[in-house]
């Protein structure tokens, strides 16, 4: 029998309906009985009235049924429109935005880029200390500012102090002059440099009028950057010009009156190098460099970390040694102090953070720079 048929058959229908109602009544009675048994048991077992306490408490926890409040009587959006003052930046922030703002502001949350900020902070601190170490002629051909490289280098080197690759790369650099070490992403491209031996005097002169030209002690190549390149000082540039073109070298825009012959001694390279190495070997403590500048101090304090690879370095005395910060950095008293006037203070341009992220520099540069600093 289908539902559609039911209206047609009258008596059957009513009977059916009666039947349905009967069944329904049975079910409802069942439910009521069930409830009665439940209640009766609760009464007899003594737990029926457990949810009732004295009138006072009952009033206190009564269900609240007002608009705008929840059943406990608490307001939901109470703090939404309030503003809080940030303890860090002293700004007024909306309450619902306060927590995310603090995360960014204090640099402590997960999404706060705190690594980048930390690097920023340490860069600002270190940029002054590294200004004297920019005289590294090994970096003829790189595109980044030296300071950024050095700092990134330092970090990388600190990380990989004991990696077997390290000594390999150092030897590699020493052995190969001018070959592009393109396989290693951390090396610079040395190919862009120019070897002064290949150029004639006229070419050299013209080259030197437009470009930096400071000769890297390692690769014997001249720096192809502009005359104001931050990696080399004017002293170095003067020294190179004197060396290549004679004492009557054209004057640089900012020529220093530095004692030039002392600053650039290729013939004495070996002696100088041995001196460098020897001078370098004792452990230098910051306290020893009382006479050096603060900047040298910084480099000295960092040097113990880089002490490992130094003995394996074959340092060529190159250009620019003389233009280091004056004063004997740390420790070694056997070499007489070079009577060099202190170079003009040089400041690096603040490195681009983007570049900084990508730079991973070999240790040797920093070592060389630090070594020169001690002279």
């Amino acid at each position, binding site marked *: 029998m289908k539902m559609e048929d039911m209206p047609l058959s009258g008596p059957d229908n009513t009977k059916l309906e009666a039947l349905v109602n009967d069944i329904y009544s049975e*079910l409802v009675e069942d439910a009521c009985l069930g409830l009665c048994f439940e209640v009766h048991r609760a009464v007899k077992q003594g737990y029926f009235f457990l949810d009732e306490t004295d009138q006072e408490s009952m009033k206190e926890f009564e269900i609240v049924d007002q608009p705008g409040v929840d059943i406990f009587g608490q307001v939901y959006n109470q703090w939404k429109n309030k503003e809080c003052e940030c303890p860090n930046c002293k700004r007024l922030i909306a309450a619902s935005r306060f927590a995310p703002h603090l995360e960014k502001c204090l640099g402590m949350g997960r999404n706060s880029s705190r690594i980048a900020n930390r690097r920023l902070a340490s860069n600002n601190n270190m940029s002054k200390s590294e200004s004297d170490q920019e005289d590294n002629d090994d970096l003829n051909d790189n595109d980044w500012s030296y300071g950024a490289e050095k700092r990134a280098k330092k970090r990388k080197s600190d990380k990989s102090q004991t990696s077997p690759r390290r000594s390999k790369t150092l030897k590699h650099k020493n052995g190969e002059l001018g070959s592009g070490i393109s396989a290693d992403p951390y090396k610079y491209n040395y190919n862009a440099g120019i070897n002064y031996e290949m150029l004639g005097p006229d070419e050299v002169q013209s080259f030197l009028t437009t470009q930096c030209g400071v000769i890297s002690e390692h690769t014997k190549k001249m720096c192809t950057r502009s005359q104001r390149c931050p990696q080399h000082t004017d002293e170095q540039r003067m020294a190179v010009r004197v060396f290549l073109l004679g004492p009557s070298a054209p004057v640089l825009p900012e020529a220093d009156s530095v004692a030039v012959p002392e600053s650039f001694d290729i013939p004495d390279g070996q002696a100088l190098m041995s001196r460098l190495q020897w001078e370098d070997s004792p452990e230098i403590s910051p306290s020893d460099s009382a006479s050096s500048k603060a900047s040298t101090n910084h480099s000295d304090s960092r040097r113990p970390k880089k002490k490992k690879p130094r003995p394996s370095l074959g340092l060529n005395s190159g250009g620019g040694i003389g233009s280091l910060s004056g004063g004997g950095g740390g420790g070694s008293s056997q070499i007489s102090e070079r009577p060099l006037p202190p170079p003009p203070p040089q400041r690096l341009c603040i490195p681009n953070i983007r570049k900084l992220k990508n730079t991973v520099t070999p240790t040797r540069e920093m070592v060389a720079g630090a070594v020169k600093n001690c002279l």
Partner: protein
Amino acid sequence: MNKESRLKATINQRLTELGERERLKELLRAKLTECGWKDQMKAHCKEVIREKGLEHVTVEDLVVEITPKGRALVPDSVKKELLQRIRAFLAQHAA
């Protein structure tokens, strides 16, 4: 009448056999709790108990007091739904 009672018996049997009766019971109980009927009835029970005295309440007392009120207090929606389900069952399984 015989036919009727026979029909009724058959259907009841069918309901129980196929488990539909239990399902309907559970459905009803759930719906009644949901709509607050149970709490209402409990409150009424409390009154009855207070009236009769906690120690002397019997099941009969409660049944007598509760069942009529219970039947009356079932919400219409619940009633309608249940009736519909029963009818559907009958339509499906009746001869």
